[in-house]
């Protein structure tokens, strides 16, 4: 059984349903998700399906979280635009921060534009700090307040 302070903090902040596609930067987080009850974790096949399922869980009365690599933001865009932003559905998102100059080539093009993309769509985001509980409270609170998507970016050392 893997312990993830990140997951524990998000659950303490109110997360009841997780859907996502793994990233190696979030390996510990996803390993811990395996121990969630079977109706509380959806190992999705692509990120757009994950966030659509999160919308369903929210309609059903549960607080969702989507987790993914930042490359998945591209797949998510149309669903974020026409489902979450149009219907005003809260969507806390845990997203890996790939694409630095030392990261592999395939991560750089989208990864280095991820922040601009979020700002273009007026999606609140911040980089994870040293306190997972504080990060989690911020994420849940801002997604609720804006009734839309919000992103916590997690770097290589943030998978605590």
């Amino acid at each position, binding site marked *: 059984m893997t312990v993830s302070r990140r997951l524990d903090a998000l659950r303490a902040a109110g997360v009841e349903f997780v859907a996502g596609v793994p990233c190696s930067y979030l390996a510990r987080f996803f390993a811990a998700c395996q121990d969630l009850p079977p109706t509380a974790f959806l190992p999705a096949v*692509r990120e757009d*399906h994950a966030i659509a399922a999160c919308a*369903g869980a929210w309609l*059903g*009365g549960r607080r969702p979280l989507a987790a993914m690599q930042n490359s998945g933001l591209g797949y998510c865009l*149309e669903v974020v635009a026409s489902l979450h932003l149009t219907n005003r559905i809260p969507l806390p998102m845990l997203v890996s921060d790939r694409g630095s100059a030392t990261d592999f080539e395939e991560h750089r093009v989208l990864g280095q534009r991820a922040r601009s993309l979020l700002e273009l769509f007026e999606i609140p985001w911040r980089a994870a700090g040293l306190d997972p509980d504080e990060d989690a409270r911020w994420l849940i609170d801002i997604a609720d307040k804006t009734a839309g998507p919000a992103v916590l970016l997690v770097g290589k050392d943030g998978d605590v």
Partner: protein
Amino acid sequence: MTKANVVAVVLSRLSDEDIVVCADGAISREAFRAFDRPRTFYMIGSMGQVASIALGLAMTRFERVVALDGDGNLLMGFGGLALVGGMRPPNFFHVVVDNGCYATTGGQPALSQRIDLASAAAGSGYVWARRCDARDRHFEAAVDAWLASPGPAFLDVTVDPRDSHPAPRIAMTPEAMARRVREALGG
């Protein structure tokens, strides 16, 4: 039978408790015209995500969840079949109103005409998957058998692609509609 008839027949078989997710476009508009109910979520975009939204509901609720899908919609998010088949929620009921084309954009043929959608669902792990024709006299019995089967269950319904009186857009803001569903479910 047309798309509108099939949507009306499916809705007529449900109880007030059942939760419905309607595909964006004509299927949502027909469902709204036939029988508006608080526990129906009407998509207005996000084509391809009918099954995924319904799965999020099925995993968090005990009531029956009906995904009212279209063939083009299903094909756009074909991974949704894998999600439902893999997670195997027993309260998930998926019906595809299959006109074999993209009717809303002018009737361009869809690849669904060459694909056995029920076999794809069965191969993905749906417990029950059948195909029927809405113009056949056994159509209503097929709908009853689908809803009486163990879930997840899948019914592909071939319909007449002609559509003489398309329904108008839904007279409710997307935000109000989404909140109505959540409130009807106690959230």
